[in-house]
Each structure stands twice: as C-alpha cells, then as structure tokens.
C-alpha cells in the first residue's frame, strides 16, 4: 500500500482571484506540500511553469485575456514546450458539459467544479499520481487519453494487426 508524500510535490496555481489562490494554497499546505507557486493569469502562469517546473498545475478555466484553456493548449505542445506532459487540473465555477469537454479536449487531465473541497482536491491529485494515463497524439490533439473507462467488452478480440503495422519508437 502507498500514500502520497506531498512534500515531494511542487505545484503551480493559476487563478485571477487572490482569495481562491489562498484557499488552494491553504489546502495544499495542509496536505504537506511546501513548494507552491502562484500566478494570476495565463501568461504569467506559463512563465511560472517554465521557471518552476512544477509536478502538477492547477488552473482556473475563466481568466481574462489568457484563460485556462489557452494555457493548457500552449502547454500541450510537445514540439514547442518542454513540459508538454505536465499533469493539469482545471478548476472552474462552470459545470456545464460543454465546458468540461472543452477542458478535456484542450488536454486537461481532470476537471474540478467550484466550490472545491479538500477531499475532492486530494482525490484528484491522488488519481493523477496513482493512475497516470498514456498520452495520445493525433493531428488535432495532444494530451492524456480522454477515455476514462476501460473496455468492458468480454467478446473475442477480433482486431488483427500484423507486424508491419508496429512502429519502433526511439528510447
């Protein structure tokens, strides 16, 4: 059995509301994290990610000028950004399905609706660490696999891939 040692984790919090940042910082400190950096909008959030190399980014969705979706898309650029695989938790007062889908399609690992509770925040961080998902790259998407459910089919595997269709990736 294993538990999370938050002292080893570094966070960046991006939210235009100072009170919200204070609440998140309070929760993360209570969990045990000692390295928490903050930014109040997307552009300085991107800078903070580059400078502080966090383990997890927690960002608000709606922010002026440069919002959480744009921040996530900019990070999810494996050819142009050094931390394209950074786990990202999107936080928002939005709870509508299309907003959650937008966050998912931008490349966020998870989505938490405000008001946020300590238990929910801990649970999502634990999930990111304990159950990392592979990343998918297509012509229009780069980010964590968007399917959360395992294939529950019990039928025979009928897909047949021959050896020519396997590609050796460099180490």
């Amino acid at each position, binding site marked *: 059995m294993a*538990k*999370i040692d938050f002292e080893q984790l570094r966070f960046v919090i991006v939210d235009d509301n100072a009170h919200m940042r204070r609440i998140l910082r309070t929760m993360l400190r209570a969990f045990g994290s000692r390295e928490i950096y903050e930014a109040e909008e997307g552009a300085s959030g991107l800078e903070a990610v580059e400078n502080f190399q966090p383990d997890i980014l927690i960002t608000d969705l709606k922010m002026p000028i440069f919002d959480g979706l744009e921040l996530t898309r900019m990070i999810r650029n494996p050819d142009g950004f050094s931390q394209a695989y950074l786990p990202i938790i999107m936080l928002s007062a939005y709870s509508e399905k299309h907003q959650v889908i937008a966050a998912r399609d931008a490349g966020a690992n998870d989505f938490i609706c405000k008001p946020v509770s300590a238990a929910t925040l801990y649970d999502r961080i634990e999930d990111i660490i304990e159950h990392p998902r592979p990343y998918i790259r*297509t012509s229009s998407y780069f980010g964590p696999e968007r399917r959360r459910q395992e294939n529950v089919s019990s039928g025979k595997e009928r897909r047949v891939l021959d050896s020519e269709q396997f590609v*050796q990736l460099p180490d």
Partner: protein
Amino acid sequence: MDQNAKQNKIPKKRLPGKELPGKELQWPQFEVIPVKNNLRKKALIAGNPKDALSRATQKADRAMEQLSHQFPLWMQKESKRLFAIRQEIDTSGPSEALLDRLFTCAHDIKGQATTYGYPVAARVGQLLADLIEHAPNPCKIPLTVIDQHVDTIRVVVAQDLRGAGNAQTKNIIAGLLVLDHTTLKRLDPRRSAA
C-alpha cells in the same frame, strides 16, 4: 522479435477509413505514448492511503476553519466589487467590456460564495452570470433586472444570511428564475420556453 522489443513497440493503429470522392482512402493515425511523468516514483511512499486521505483532509478542513474568519470580509469585498461595476455601468452606460466584468464578478461569486458560507449568494451569482452569458446582447438586459440580482447579493451579505436560506430566500430565487427566463425570452423571441 524478442520480448523487450515487442514491449517497446507501439502499434500504429488503423482506424476505419473515410472514403472521399475522387481521392484515396484516408486513414487517420494516432500515436499512443506511454506515461512520461515519474510522479509515482517521486511521491508515493509506504503507508495506508485511506488513513492518509483522512488525515490530510481533516488537516485541510482545520486549516480552512482557521481561514474562515476572513470569509465574511472576502464576501463583502466581492459584493462591493459587484456593486462598483454596476455603478460604473450607470456612469458610463452599458458596454461589452463592463458587462463582461460584471459577468466575471458574478461568476466568481458563483464559484466561491458557498465556500465562504453564503450559498444563497452563490446561487444568485449563478443566475446573474447565466443571464449575462445567455443574453444575445448583454447590453440590452434591463438594468432593473440586473439590479434585482445585485441587490439580492448585497442584502444577503449585509445581513450575513448564511446557510441554505429560508422560505423567503427560496421565493426570491424562484422569482429571479422566472424574471431571468422572461427577460431572455424578450431579448431573444426565438428562445423556446423551458
């Protein structure tokens, strides 16, 4: 091929192709990339995860309780910010920029007021944010309708009305719902009845 080589290989999967008129069959490709973060190695240590969750959340809840003495002040600041923007609309007239700021403030109240102990204010903030977001032209929303929302939030905060509210606040929220629906219908006659 040996076992290690096979484990390192990523199948280039073929999805069902699309047949386009006059063109070759198009096969969308995707790449599955194994996890690159090493957080498990870095941050997982021996221990009981359920105990750890329980201890961490209890500690966080205690910390939030200590912080909560600031919540009424924070809620007053949000309420004042909302009112200040409303007054700016009176001074300068409604504009896209001002309505956007009003939306942002209402949206923040929606997201945070419950944490501060004012779920009624959160609900009214949500109604105001939804009204502005769904209006085809937010500048055309009657200011008297906006005032109903802003003033309700101000009263809730001024009278420190915490908790889920009573029958009166429930009636006020029901009234605001009907008002918002009627307003949106008037602004956009194509909008179907709920």
